[in-house]
């Protein structure tokens, strides 16, 4: 079976991302990587919680309750959460062998992700310039920017990944060679949303209750 042979919706296998050995390996390898990423983000969360509100001068320096606001965090959450369901739609179409619909939903996912990123860049700019809360300001600020910034870096990487896949495969349609690639990118995107659920809870919501 040649890995780039064409299919029809009827002949397309049930789990196309795992129909080849390479696909099975990529699928498993990526889940294992996510296991490692879980420990990585847990470490970043642990550092953040340990250094939360640890500033040189608690009386005058910026603390969590001064900084975070509900509307912005809520909007960013909605954008990312919606981008997660749109990527689910994309994979649904992939399973049904509808290449163009998959591409369309991936595009919507990317646009929502870009929206999230734009808001986050605005947020960091806002904190740095309006509040004097920069990366080097205090231990608390270093921990905040590292945790949320690492997540943001993962979003950037994920967007680049999905865009590269879309562009590279635009003229090729679906095959058993690129099905695992789309599937794995989608799983990565979901994981980023999973991490964000904890970020908005631990950083923003817990930051605002004090």
């Amino acid at each position, binding site marked *: 079976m040649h890995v780039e042979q064409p299919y029809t*919706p*009827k*002949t397309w*296998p*049930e*789990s196309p991302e*795992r*129909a080849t050995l390479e696909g099975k390996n990529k699928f*498993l390898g990526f*889940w*294992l990587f*996510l*296991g*490692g*990423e*879980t*420990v990585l*983000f*847990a*470490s970043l*969360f*642990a*550092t953040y*919680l*340990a250094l939360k509100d640890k500033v040189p001068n608690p009386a005058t320096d910026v603390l969590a309750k001064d900084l975070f606001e*509900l509307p912005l*965090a*809520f909007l960013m*959450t*909605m954008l990312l*959460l919606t981008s*997660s*369901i749109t990527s*689910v*739609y994309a994979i*649904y179409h992939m*399973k*049904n062998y509808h290449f163009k619909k998959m591409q369309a939903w991936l595009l919507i996912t990317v646009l929502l992700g870009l929206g999230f990123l734009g808001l986050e860049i605005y947020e960091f700019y806002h904190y740095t310039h309006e509040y004097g809360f920069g990366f080097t300001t205090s231990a608390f600020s270093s921990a905040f920017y590292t945790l949320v910034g690492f997540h943001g870096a993962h979003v950037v990487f994920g967007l680049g990944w999905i865009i590269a896949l879309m562009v590279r495969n635009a003229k090729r349609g679906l095959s058993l060679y690129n099905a695992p690639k789309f599937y794995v990118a989608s*799983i990565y995107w*979901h*994981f980023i*949303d*999973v991490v964000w*659920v*904890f970020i*908005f*809870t*631990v950083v923003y*919501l*817990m930051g*605002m*209750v*004090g």
Partner: protein
Amino acid sequence: MANNLNSNNPNVEYEYRRRRNAEEMRHQVISFAISIFLTLVAFGAVYAGFDKWFVVPVILLLAVVQVIFQLYYFMHMGNKGHEAPQLFLYGGAIIGFSILLGFLTIVWW
């Protein structure tokens, strides 16, 4: 992946798969709706200004529930062929939890 479908007729199999994919998609949209709802409740609890000793455990619980939904519905973690992913993700979660516990208890004293 082996097809665990009994019919020899490709049309029937195709119909079955399409229906099943559509049903899974419905589950996922419901999960999405539940996630939005849980998010709203969490934001609402903070907005309402309840005591922090009540709010913090509640929103953490809501976060865990939402993540479980996303892992199982969006990422298919409960489906067949996901035994190793489950093992390693829960393994990572357990180790991550012990790191969090350590950092919350034996960093400042």
